[in-house]
Every structure is written in C-alpha cells, then in structure tokens.
C-alpha cells in the first residue's frame, strides 16, 4: 500500500477527453429544448483522459485492504473468500443485458435463477418461501418487520405495535423497527450473554408484535433457551424474527425454521460469499413460514405448474413494494453460483469449519485478552480488551482502538471494535471457514505480540498505525468543519 494524494478533479484539464462516443448524426439536437428547461450552470465534472482515469483508480485501489489482500476478521461481517467464478457469471451479458420489465417469456433463465435460489434458501433454512427483493440486511429486516405488522393487522390484531430487541442486537434492529413504526422494547442479557428469559416474560403481552433475535447472538453465543423463548413469544401471540447476520455459524447444521422462527433474512454478502464491495451492493432475502407466504412483498416469482414456466406477479394481500424491481439480481447470481459450487456435500462444513476457526483463535488468545464469557462460541467471539490494563506514555490506558490500529501494521484488518455495547472494550473476531490454520496462527502471533507491546512499549500502540498510507485521521475536524465535496474544498481553500 502506498499513499497517493490526488482527487480525480485535480487531474482535470479543459479540453481533455476520456470518452469514446459516436458522432451525433441525428437531425434533431438537444439545444432545441426550450431555454427554461436547459441547464445553465457548470456540472463540475473533471476532464481527464482514459489512461489517467485508469491509473488514478488503480492508485486508489492500492490504498485499500480487501479479503483478497489479507485476513479480515471483522466480527459479524463474515468476510469469507469471494469466489472468482461467481463474478464472471454475474457479468455475463446474457444476464447483465436484461431489462427488468422484459416479458417473463424472454427471461426464463433469469427467473429460473430467482426461483431455484429461493427454493435452495428454503431448504437451507427450513423456511417455506423467500423473496429475493431486499437489497441488504437492514432492508431485509425492514421488509420482515413489514410482513410481521401486516400479519397482525390482517388478523384484526392492530394493537401489536411493540417489538422486543435484545440489548446485544445490531443497531439496525432497533432502527429498522423504528422506521417500520414499531416501538422498541429492550430485553436484557444475562451474565452468560444470553437473553434473560425472566426479563423477557413480563414484556410479553397483546401489544407485542414479536421479537427480533440474532442466533448465535452478537457475542457469538447460541441462545440455548430458544425452545422456551419460542414457546413464550408464540403463546403471547407474537412472531419470531431471525436476523441472519450470524447465519454462517449454523449453515449446514441448524435451520432457523426448525427453531420456530417465523420470518428471517439472510445476508448473501456474508453467508453466501458475495463480495461486500466496500459497503454494497448486498442482498437481504427474506424467508417466511407457510402462513405468512401471501404477505411477501411484490413482485413475486413463481413456477406455474400448468405451463412449467416462471411467471412474475403482484401480491395484492402482501406487505407492499420495497424495491424498484426484483432485487439486486447481479448479486443473486453470485450466491446461486456459490451454492452450486458448495453443493449438498460441502455446505455441511461451512458452519462447523467457521466455528472451529473461531474457537481456535479464542482459546489461543484468552490469556492475553480478557474473555468475559468463556463458553464455547459459534462463528465469532468477543474479547473485552487486553487481559492486563496498561497505561500509555501519555497516562491514558491502552485501548481496544490502539490494538486495532496496531493490527493494521501487522498486515491484518482490524476486528469489529466497541461492539457489542455490552462491554466497554469489545473486540469482536470472526475468522470464517476460508482461512487456513497458518493464517490463524499468524494472526494469533500478531495479537500476542501486540499484547506484549502494550506492556513493553505502549506508545507504539498509541501512535499506530505506522505502516499504512495514512495514520489516524482527525475525525473531530471532519465533523466540526465538514468538507463533503470538491467544490466545498475549493471554497474553504479560498478562505484560508
């Protein structure tokens, strides 16, 4: 990685061209538009040649760390290997060139992918039907909650406006609930890091729409009391929502449908190997139990038993429309290819190998880092900072942030930090099944060295990272004097 200090706008020179477009030989020209409808101001776009564009973005990419660069143990993000064949299949013109409103007869191959992928996700999760329309995990949550509300309202049970969310939940859970018009009620965790059933029970009444659960939860712990939770929530008339963010732990081993969940989402960009792309595009398919099938959002894709063809249709009773068309189809193709490669033989090992890797790292590091909950973990686990509190040269304690930044120097991406909120110094580590023991050993070694440095030379940690293109950014300056565009940047330069 090397520092490169240019914005594309700074390469611009009037009169340079980076495009290759045909001459305009049409008789009508756009300057025939009425003046009131024409743009008069400049669009502020750069003028750059093609080779300069390519070099600029390759230089930018060189300041980025991806799964293909190195180990990326970001907890709850499932940074597994993204197979290359999937990318190639996704960019096939036979799919990438299809218009979303083409008649179903002309897109049978694409609809078959949609239909079969839905079916395979049902098989792997124990749900009855899936919509592949949601664009991301949070979008899936929102869609699932819309289905939950529709279910109660369709039964005349419109007073169910509260949703129970554990205190360990991802931030998107309460946020999705709020956007869906639900009031969030938090349920506490026990000292063992699991949902406190005694705290849950009194919350369950006829105002509760349901509960959102992540299982294993964000501490990487399996909610062992799932049967009792399921019985209590269902007995109170609520539904169970499964947040699939941590499904990688269970893939091939346990199905949410078999645990009694009514609605769930999957993150195809986590469990099903589609790349994260620097923050998207993802896909967050939502699965439901049989009695909720008619509430899935539209459009829906079904296989007609009469004609043997796939059809696209509306869903008059459904939760509504949550996407322009039929989801991030290009991402669905990648997950489809991944399932074909895994097959029924290899899918059984995804969960176990990811759990093996997590427990191996946890057991290897538990003397150097504080392990608040020592039980068996699933695909991830959480340390609460360094085992020994150490004080840096400037009198402040060596923190989780310092450990994370120092890891970058050792060539690893940092784990998720300061989440979950249950601990002050959370370090959340998820290794995934696609990392070799050698890689895990190298990471363990680096983590131990860092724990040692925290004692011997804390300033190395406090000032880390040292080997990255930039050092720690001044986030306060960014927030108090926001410069969000090149235009603002130029005008603030002029002021100074």
């Amino acid at each position, binding site marked *: 990685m090397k520092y490169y200090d240019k914005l594309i706008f700074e390469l611009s020179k009037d009169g340079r061209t*980076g495009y290759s477009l045909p001459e305009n030989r049409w008789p009508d020209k756009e300057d025939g538009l009425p003046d009131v*409808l024409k743009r008069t101001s400049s669009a502020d*776009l750069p003028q750059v040649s093609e080779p300069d564009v390519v070099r600029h*973005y390759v230089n930018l*990419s060189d300041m*980025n760390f991806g799964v293909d660069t190195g180990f990326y143990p970001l907890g709850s993000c499932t940074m597994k290997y993204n197979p290359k064949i999937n990318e190639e299949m996704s960019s096939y013109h036979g799919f990438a060139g299809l218009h979303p409103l083409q008649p179903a007869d002309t897109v049978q191959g694409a609809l078959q992918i949609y239909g079969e992928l839905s079916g395979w996700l049902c098989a792997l999760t124990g749900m009855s039907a899936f919509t592949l329309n949601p664009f991301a995990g*949070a979008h899936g949550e929102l869609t699932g909650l819309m289905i939950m509300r529709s279910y109660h309202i369709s039964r005349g049970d419109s007073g169910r406006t509260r949703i129970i969310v554990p205190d360990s939940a991802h931030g998107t859970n309460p946020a999705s609930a709020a956007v869906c018009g639900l009031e969030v009620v938090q349920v506490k965790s026990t000292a063992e890091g699991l949902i406190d059933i005694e705290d849950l029970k009194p919350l369950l009444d006829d105002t509760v729409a349901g509960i959102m659960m992540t299982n294993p939860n964000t501490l990487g712990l399996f909610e062992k009391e799932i049967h009792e939770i399921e019985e209590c929530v269902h007995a109170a008339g609520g539904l169970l929502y499964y947040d699939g963010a941590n499904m990688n732990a269970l893939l091939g081993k346990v199905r949410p449908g078999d645990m009694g969940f009514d609605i769930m989402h999957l993150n195809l960009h986590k469990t099903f190997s589609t790349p994260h*792309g620097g923050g998207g595009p993802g896909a967050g398919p939502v699965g439901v139990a049989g009695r909720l099938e008619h509430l899935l959002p539209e459009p829906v894709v079904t296989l007609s038993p009469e004609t043997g063809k796939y059809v696209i249709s509306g869903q008059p009773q459904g939760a*509504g429309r949550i996407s322009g068309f039929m989801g991030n189809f290009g991402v669905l193709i990648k997950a489809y290819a991944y399932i074909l490669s895994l097959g029924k033989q290899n899918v059984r090992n995804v969960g176990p190998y990811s759990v093996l890797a997590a427990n191996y790292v946890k057991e290897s590091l538990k003397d150097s880092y504080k392990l608040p909950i020592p039980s068996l973990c699933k695909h991830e686990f959480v340390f609460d900072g360094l085992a020994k509190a150490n004080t840096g040269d400037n009198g402040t304690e060596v923190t989780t942030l310092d450990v994370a930044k120092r890891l970058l120097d050792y060539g690893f991406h940092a784990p998720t930090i300061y989440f979950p909120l249950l601990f002050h110094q959370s370090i959340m580590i998820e290794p995934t099944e696609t990392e070799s023991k050698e890689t895990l050993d190298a990471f363990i070694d680096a983590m131990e060295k860092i724990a040692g440095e925290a004692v011997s030379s804390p300033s190395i940690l406090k000032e880390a990272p040292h080997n990255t293109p930039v050092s720690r950014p001044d986030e306060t300056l960014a927030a108090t004097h926001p410069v969000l565009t090149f235009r603002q940047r130029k005008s603030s330069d002029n002021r100074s």
Partner: protein
Amino acid sequence: MGFAYFPDTEEDIRAMLSRIGVASLDALYSDVPCDVLFKGEFDIPDAMSEMEVRRRFSELASRNTALTVFCGAGAYDHYSPAVIQSVISRSEFLTSYTPYQAEVSQGTLRYIFEFQSMMAGLTDMDCSNASMYDGPTSAAEAAMMSVACSRRKNKVLLSEALFPHVLQVVETYCRYHGTETCVIPMKDGVTDIAAIEAALASGNVAGIMVPGINRFGIIEDLTGLAGAVHDSGALLIMYSDPSSLAVIRTPGEWGADIVCGDAQTLGIPLNFGGPYLGFLCCRKEFVRKMPGRIVGETVDAGGKRCYVLTLQAREQHIRREKATSNICSNQSLMALYVTVYLSLMGPQGLKRVNGLSYGGAHYLHSELLRTGLFEDPFGKPFLKEFALRSAIPAGRLQKALLDRGIFGALSCGEDLVSFCVTENRTKEEADRLVDAVLSCSSKS
C-alpha cells in the same frame, strides 16, 4: 474430499480441536438442543466443479432472449465503457467492507468523496451521501427525511407523474413509518402545480416530491413551484435522472431542497433490475438529517490529507431506536461505477450521451408519428423517452416488436405506450422498429 474454498486439512482440524479441548466438530455444537440439529440431506444440488457451474450458466443464459431495448421506465440501456469493468474488478475495491478502518480504506473513501462531489455538481446541491440502494428506496428515504426536517409535520405530497414503481415504494415505506402520503393527480401528462398549491393550503405538509423527467418522459416545467412550496414551509424533493442533468435544468436551479433518484443511467448495466444506485443530495442546512453514509475530508496525525466516514451521529448504529433511517451500508461498488463513468465522460461526454439519446428519440418519435398509427397525446418536450397514443393495442404491438427481437412499446396508461432511445441505439435499429410496427398494422 477436498474443496477449493476450504483450506482445513484433517490434520489441521485435529490440531485445532485439540487446542480447543473438544473431541469432534459435532462437539462444537453441544450447546445446540439436539432436536434442532439438522440431520437430513439438504434439498440442493450436488457440488459442481467450476466447469459444470459455467455450463449450467450458459444453459440458463440460453433460456433468455437478447433483445434490442427501446424501453426505459426506470431502467435505461446506456453504454458502459470498458474501463469501468476493469476498475471495479480490482479486488481491493471489490472484496473490502464498509471503510470503518480509514487508514486501510483510503481508496474507497476517496472515490466516495469524488462520487459525492460529482452528484452534488450534477444536481446543483451542496451535499450528497455515499449512495442508497435504488431510485425508489432513495425516494422513500427522501420523503421520510423531509418529515425529519420539519417540525411535527407528517404529510408528503407525491406527484402522480412520478413512475408508478417509485410511488408504490414511497407509499409502502410511509404507510409503515406513519407518514401520510397524498398523490396529486397529473394534468395533461405533467405534474399539476396548481393542485399542489391547493393541497399545500391544507397544512401539515413536510415535503412535496415531483419528477424532473416524468413517467411519460416529459421534462417537467416547474416554474413557480419552489416558491409556493417554500412559502408554505415545506421542502421540495425532486426525483431526477442524473444523466439528463448535463443538459436539463437542475434541481438546484428549480429551487429543490432534496434530490433523489437512480444513478443507474450513469454507466450501470441493466442487470435485470439490480444492482442499481440510489442517490440522495440536499442543501447544506439539511445535511444532518440526511440518511446514509457520508464521507468527509480531514487530515491524519501527520497532517496528510485523508478521508473518513463523518457526521455519524445521524446513523442507525449510534441512534438505534431513535434513528430516522435504518440504512446501514450503501451500494459502494455501484458508486464506483458511476464515479469512473463520470470521470471518463466529463461534462462534454455526458452532453454527447444526451445529444445522441435526444436525437435518436426524436427521430423515432417523428418516424412513428409518420406511420399515422400514433399520436402524441401531450405534445410536451422530452429527452430520451416518450409516450404515444397507439391505434394498435399495446399487447399486440409489443408482441410484434418482440418477434423482431425488439423490446419497446411498454404500456403506460390507457392506449398509451412508451419508447426510449439511448446512445446505444442506431438508426438501423430504429428503422427496424418502425418496420415492425408497419407490418403489424398491415396484418390487421
């Protein structure tokens, strides 16, 4: 049996189990109740080699029909230059996560800053976020944002001239969110500004959403609208096609406060409907109410210019149940598509794209009118997409075009069909479309 994506050997597994202190992989699930452990066989295909996967996809692709696209309606067949695929395939961009660790994410952060700059420039707004899922969901977020910006007002007016799928998504979100929506009927194929002014008088209106280019392809003349909206204390939201903004009057020039829409038109392939790219821009006084990620410039500890995710106090992971949006990630890689596209195009290239689309669309428009089978129901200015009243029923017309490998004549209202021409279409293709129409009519 080995599998290419799993590095663990049997020896590795034994060594790791031994460190953990358990006897078997199954023992790693001893905390799971026995009756929920899945013991059957999964009803999914047998594992395939890479060659078999490739064969399966070519079979599937052969079940699709490649068509010459003369249809828009929210998804446009613009050209995607070769450079884009090359850049977005860089593993460092493709396989990274949201740029939480700024020190090793300057590539992503910097192109998002460039993206924000370009989108703000195109729309003539002060700020842009790092992107949203697609156009319709960005419109839903914009509607909820206008409510968050207002003081206790809870109604959003929607012009019926917006595309139907946009209206449906906004209405779905708002229904659950508890925001009242009211669709203002069109007049003569465009937004009815007088009706909006009347609806404003009823009070409680937080925002008004209108299209820049509407469901019939007409470029809306919004003269006087912003003044009326602002006088009532509401915000003007525009749903725009950013590609068109190289040539048509910008939301900023119309006086809009928030701009949303789909940037698929800026170099993103049709992809059967996704991934596309929602965008959201606004005036600077509203930036702290804007949902989604935002990248800002700062300096590092050594004074070097660098970029970070900023203004995060707005976001779901901080606000949790107090959040006004649940959006977490953006569609970062699609923002890279658009950033590279706009870097290549520049102001002149994007004007050329619009000129070619305008020229082609107006050629097809006049050729179709010359057949005597169509009339222009509204007679208003358009750019690349237009609607005609057809003497031939839409279904039959579309079928006749499909028989010639053309997708066009999308039904968009009673007797109305729409067509769209981008720079990707040639005169020969347009002539073929007109021929197909003529032969369809002579058969009747």
